[in-house]
């Protein structure tokens, strides 16, 4: 029983952390159909800005929020100058966001150097449940992720902005004829996705070492979270996808090593792409 509870807690932590990292990608992919290959670089940028904020003795929480806004702003500029002209050609946006990754990674290397940085865990210690100790910081991250996803759900399903966005996904031309400013809405969604990526990068920074390629690990897994969960199923899909990808990796790693676990997950994701491209549990 206690073992089951601790496995459950562990899986929840992994699921929600992965969901946090994938959320920005799910927003952009699910709502405006852009495969943001720059997502990993945006996570990395968020982590570096948070690190830089701490060097300037800005408190951790403020640094993370600032990082989110800066990355969101960079995303907005990128959208405004480049991406908005290519919404109708998925290959071009894919290549351009990948180019964003290449250029950003190089700039990070030039500005910050290639060596590892550490962001000190602002909330060390753990919560003792008697049978299991949960790290405080990871718990806070999970609570925050749940909050972000629920509040996005609230905006999406309970406000007029949400109705407009859903109308736009359903029928872009019609929504535009009814007076919805499509290009502005796209801009806001893209910016929000980048903001979330920057925020997530800052938040995961204390759990990893910060390096120019730290976002790569999350990039491909985030894609599979989105695909397994189902594109457009931003809220439930992200959670389900993270649960399947993160959970599978943890379970396989119990029986073999980490590398085989990753291979198994990627293999599984390719199979899902083939047999259930609409997402593992979603209706067509």
């Amino acid at each position, binding site marked *: 029983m206690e073992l089951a509870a601790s496995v459950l807690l562990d899986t929840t932590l992994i699921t929600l952390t992965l969901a946090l990292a994938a959320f920005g990608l799910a927003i952009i992919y699910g709502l405006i159909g852009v*495969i943001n290959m720059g997502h990993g670089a945006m996570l990395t940028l968020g982590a570096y800005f948070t690190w830089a904020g701490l060097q300037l003795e800005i408190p951790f929480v403020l640094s993370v929020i600032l990082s989110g806004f800066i990355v969101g702003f960079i995303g907005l500029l990128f959208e405004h100058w*480049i991406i908005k*002209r290519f919404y109708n050609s*998925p*290959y*071009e946006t*894919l*290549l*351009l966001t*990948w*180019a964003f990754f*290449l*250029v950003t990674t*190089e*700039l990070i*290397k*030039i500005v910050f150097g290639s060596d590892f940085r550490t962001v000190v865990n602002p909330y060390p210690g753990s919560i003792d449940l008697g049978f299991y100790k949960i790290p405080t910081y990871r718990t806070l991250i999970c609570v925050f992720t749940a909050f972000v996803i629920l509040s996005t759900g609230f905006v999406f399903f309970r406000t007029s902005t949400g109705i407009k966005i859903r109308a736009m996904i359903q029928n872009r031309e019609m929504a535009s004829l009814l007076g919805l400013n499509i290009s502005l809405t796209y801009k806001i969604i893209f910016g929000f996705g980048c903001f979330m990526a920057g925020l997530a990068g800052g938040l995961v920074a204390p759990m990893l070492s910060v390096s120019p390629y730290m976002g*790569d690990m999350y990039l*491909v897994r985030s*894609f*599979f979270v989105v*695909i397994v969960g189902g594109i457009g199923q931003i809220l439930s899909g992200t959670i389900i996808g993270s649960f399947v990808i993160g959970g599978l990796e943890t379970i396989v790693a119990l029986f073999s*090593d980490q*590398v*085989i676990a*990753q*291979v198994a997950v*990627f*293999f599984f*994701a*390719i199979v899902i*792409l*083939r*047999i259930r*491209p609409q997402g593992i549990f979603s209706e067509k």
Partner: protein
Amino acid sequence: MQNVLTKISGEAKFELLIFLALASIPLVFSGYILFILPQYMLFGLLAVSLSILWGLTGIISFGQAGFFAIGAYAIGIVVKSTFLMNSAILGILLGIIVSAVIAGVVGYFLFSAKVKATYFVLATLALSIIIEQLAKSQKEITGGWNGLFVDRISISFGDLLEYSLFNDIPMYYFTLLLTTIAYALIKFLTTSNFGKILRGIRENEDRILALGYNTSIYKTLIFCVSGALAGFAGSIYGTHAGFVDPSLARVLFSTEVIVWVAIGGRNSIIGSFLGGILVASLANYLNSITPEYWQLIIGIVFIAVVILFKGGLAGGLEEIYHRLKSKNYVSARNP
């Protein structure tokens, strides 16, 4: 001779010129360039393997480096287990076959379900990561992180003739010969009916389907050919470089191939081939003068090409050529 020359098209003349130039380089230059150029020719072939997918058929693969690495590991592993005669040829064949089979299985698995083009990109991305991870973890076979040393092979025909590729000039001509043959085969393929159907798929897949062609078979076949070509280039690369390690399969290398093809010209086979050679040499040169900024420069050039010059260098040259030929020429690609 004169008649033959006037009959063949401008592009074919250009291709002939490039290969003649490559053949005469050892007569003029010596030293490092003779060592490194075969490697770039193989990169050129790798670029061609992407261009027949991207430019010809309209499919992007982020996994070409994976096939390249399979080829390199195949020859490395076969040559190391020296119990076989003619292990070199066997290694090259194995590289081609394994790559083609993997490409065929993955390709058919995805194409037969009409998986979206952008999903296919993600699947190939995952494929290349799987190959990289396996290369890292299967230490007994691949040497793990440390990689694998591969001897320069010698090609033997029976007992009489043995042709060692240890020196640079034999290696150069050996690579050039194989590159030329592979290039000619690909060129033949793209001008055949098969190539026409692939172009049709790129322009309008539903229409080709309606004409009665099983497009998923055609896409699988071209992905197979592309994988085989990348594996072939990789196997020669293995023996040329003398060393194989998991970084050959990394996603960044796959995307370098995309950058070469974008800059060289995705719609042109010779453009992609030259893109591979030129961008790789340029990268090498920039790396020696500004090690910090060269990747940044190439990244920015890549963005500029994707936004402004969809046809890449080859497309640009073609346009200039047509402009010069007729003043009334209206660009077909950028109306």
